[in-house]
C-alpha cells in the first residue's frame, strides 16, 4: 500500500494496575485530548471515529453508547468494533481509503481493575455446548497450548521465563508501563503452577489505560505532522473458534494475518525488513510462538533467539522493547493499542531510554486471548 494512511497523532494515559481516581470517561477524555493536541486538531476536524470495546469487559449491555462523549464525537459518525484495537485501526484505515474521510480517530481503553470476576467472564466466552461445561479456570486452555508448543518445538520453561525477564525489565524504563520489574529466570521458574506447564509468572497481569490514535490520509497527514507514521500493511484473521477443532501449539491466525500484511507492505523477507516488533505475550510462550508464526524466525528457533539476546533492545531483532503485555499489562481490547503505541514511539524516536537507533519499519501484532484464535498485524514505518 503506497503512502496513503498515516498515524499523525497518538495520546495515552499510560497504563497502571489500578486507576481509582478517574472514571472511564475521564480516562478516555485525557487520552483523546493528548492525541488531538499531538497533531494540532480538534473534534471539528475529525471525519469519523471508531471505538473499541466488549460489553462484559465494560460492565454494560450496550457499551458503545458511552463512547462518543469522551472523544468529542457527539452527533458525529462513530461506531464500536467489538474486537482488538488493531481491527478497529484496520476499520479506520479502510474508512480513509474509501474516500469518505480525511481524518479518522480510533480509540481503546481498559478498566480491567473494575472487573471483579475476570475468570468467569472468560469462561462466559466459551461455547456453552462443550468447553464451557467443564466449569474450570480458563487458563487450562493456555496450559494445553503451551504444553503442545513445547512438545512440538522443544522450547523449555526456561526459554519462556527468559521472555518474562526481558519484557518486564524493558518495562521498567517505559513510563507508560504498569508492571516493570527486575526478575531472574530462576525467580520466574519458581512461581506457583496454575495449569502446568503454565505458572503464575508466565501469565501477564492486567492494567488500566486508554489510547487514542489519529489517522489521516496522505497529504493531510503530511500537513499535520513532521513525523507521520505510515500504515504500510494491516490485516486481521480469525481461525476456528472451536477449541475442539483448533490446531494446538500453533498461531495460524498470526501466520495468515502476517502473510496478508507483508504482501500489502511489499515485504518479502520479514526477518531482515522488519527492524523490531511489539507482539502479544499475554502468556510467556506466546511471544515465541508468535515470532515463529510471523516468520521473524523459523519454527522452533525463537527460543534460541531469546536465549542468545537477539531479541533484547541491544539485539538484531528487538521484540517487545517497551515491555509487551508482560510489562505494560494485559489490557484486553486495548492490548493492540499499547503495542501500536510502543511501535509509534520507537519509530518517532520518542521511546526514551529504550529508544532503538535508526529504525524505519516496526510490526505490531495482537491476539484476542482465550478462547479465540483471532489475531491482527499492522506494519508501520517512518
Amino acid at each position, binding site marked *: 500500500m503506497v503512502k496513503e494512511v498515516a498515524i499523525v497523532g497518538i495520546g495515552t*494515559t499510560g497504563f497502571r494496575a489500578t486507576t*481509582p*481516581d*478517574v472514571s472511564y470517561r*475521564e480516562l478516555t*477524555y*485525557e487520552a483523546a*485530548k*493528548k492525541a488531538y493536541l499531538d497533531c494540532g486538531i480538534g473534534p471539528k476536524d475529525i471525519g469519523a471515529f471508531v471505538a473499541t470495546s466488549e460489553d*462484559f469487559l465494560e*460492565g454494560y*449491555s450496550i457499551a458503545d453508547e458511552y463512547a462518543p462523549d469522551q472523544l468529542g464525537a457527539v452527533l458525529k459518525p462513530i461506531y464500536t468494533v467489538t474486537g482488538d484495537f488493531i481491527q478497529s485501526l484496520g476499520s479506520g484505515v479502510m474508512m480513509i481509503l474509501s474516500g469518505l474521510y480525511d481524518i479518522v480517530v480510533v480509540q481503546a481503553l481498559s478498566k480491567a481493575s*473494575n472487573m471483579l470476576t475476570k*475468570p*468467569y467472564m472468560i*469462561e462466559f466466552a466459551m461455547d*456453552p*455446548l*462443550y*468447553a464451557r*461445561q*467443564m*466449569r*474450570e*479456570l*480458563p*487458563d*487450562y486452555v493456555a*496450559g*494445553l*497450548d*503451551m*504444553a*503442545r508448543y513445547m*512438545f512440538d518445538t522443544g522450547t523449555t520453561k526456561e526459554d519462556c521465563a527468559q521472555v518474562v525477564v526481558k519484557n518486564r525489565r524493558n518495562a521498567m524504563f517505559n513510563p507508560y508501563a504498569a508492571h516493570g520489574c527486575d526478575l531472574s529466570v530462576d525467580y520466574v521458574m519458581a512461581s*506457583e*503452577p*496454575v*495449569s*502446568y*506447564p*503454565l505458572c503464575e509468572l508466565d501469565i501477564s497481569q492486567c492494567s488500566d489505560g486508554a489510547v487514542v490514535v489519529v489517522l489521516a490520509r496522505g497529504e493531510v497527514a503530511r500537513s499535520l505532522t513532521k513525523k507521520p507514521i505510515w500504515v504500510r500493511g494491516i490485516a486481521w484473521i480469525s481461525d*476456528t473458534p*472451536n*477449541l*475442539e*477443532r483448533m490446531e*494446538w*501449539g500453533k498461531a495460524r491466525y498470526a501466520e495468515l494475518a502476517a502473510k496478508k500484511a507483508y504482501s500489502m507492505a511489499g515485504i518479502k523477507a520479514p526477518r531482515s525488513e522488519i527492524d523490531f516488533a511489539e507482539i502479544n505475550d499475554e502468556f510467556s510462550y506466546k511471544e515465541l510462538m508468535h515470532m515463529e508464526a510471523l516468520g521473524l524466525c523459523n519454527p522452533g528457533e525463537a527460543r534460541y533467539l531469546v536465549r542468545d539476546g537477539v531479541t533484547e533492545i541491544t539485539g538484531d531483532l528487538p521484540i517487545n522493547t517497551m515491555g509487551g503485555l508482560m510489562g505494560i499489562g494485559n489490557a484486553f481490547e486495548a492490548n493492540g493499542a499499547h503495542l501500536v503505541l510502543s511501535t509509534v514511539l520507537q519509530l518517532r524516536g520518542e521511546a526514551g531510554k529504550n529508544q532503538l537507533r535508526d529504525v524505519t519499519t516496526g510490526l505490531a501484532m495482537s491476539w484476542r486471548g482465550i478462547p479465540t484464535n483471532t489475531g491482527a498485524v499492522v506494519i508501520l514505518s517512518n
Partner: protein
Amino acid sequence: MALVERLQVTTQVGYWCGEIPLEYIYTYGRAGEAFYRTLIEKEKILGAYCPQCDAIFVPASIFCERCFERIEGNYRELEPVGIVETFTVLYKNIDGTLKEKPELIAMINIKGAVGGLLHYLKEVDPKDVKIGMQVKAVFKPKDQREGGLKDISHFKPL
C-alpha cells in the same frame, strides 16, 4: 494532565458496585441435540462427514466450517476412543482456590475424526501421560446422564 481537576485526598476515591443479573438456558441446536442424544443412548461420539473436505468433524455440526457445505445429513457415530493431542495439570479452581488434588485435562482427538473433546483424564498417574497416548471415555451410569459434557465422567488410558 488533561483533567482540569483531580482528586486530592484519598478518601475522595470511590467506586460503585454492581453486577449483570442474567441467567441463560442454551438449547443445543439440531446438531448438538443429535450429538448428546447419541452420547446418552449409544455411548458413541457423533461426528459429521464432509464429502468436500473428505473428513469427519467432531463434534457434529450441520455445516462444515471450512467449505461451508451443509453436512447435516452425514452424521457418523464414532467409538469414544482417541489420542491425547495435548494435556495440562490444573492446580486452581475458577474461583481462584487451590484444588485439593490437581486435575488432568486433555484435548482428546477422536479416532478417525478431525477434532474431539476437552475433558478430564483420570485413572492414570500424571507422570505416565504422554501426548499421542490412546484413551477411551468412561460414561456415567445412564440414569445420571442429563445431556451434557459431564455425561462422560472422564477419559482413561485404553
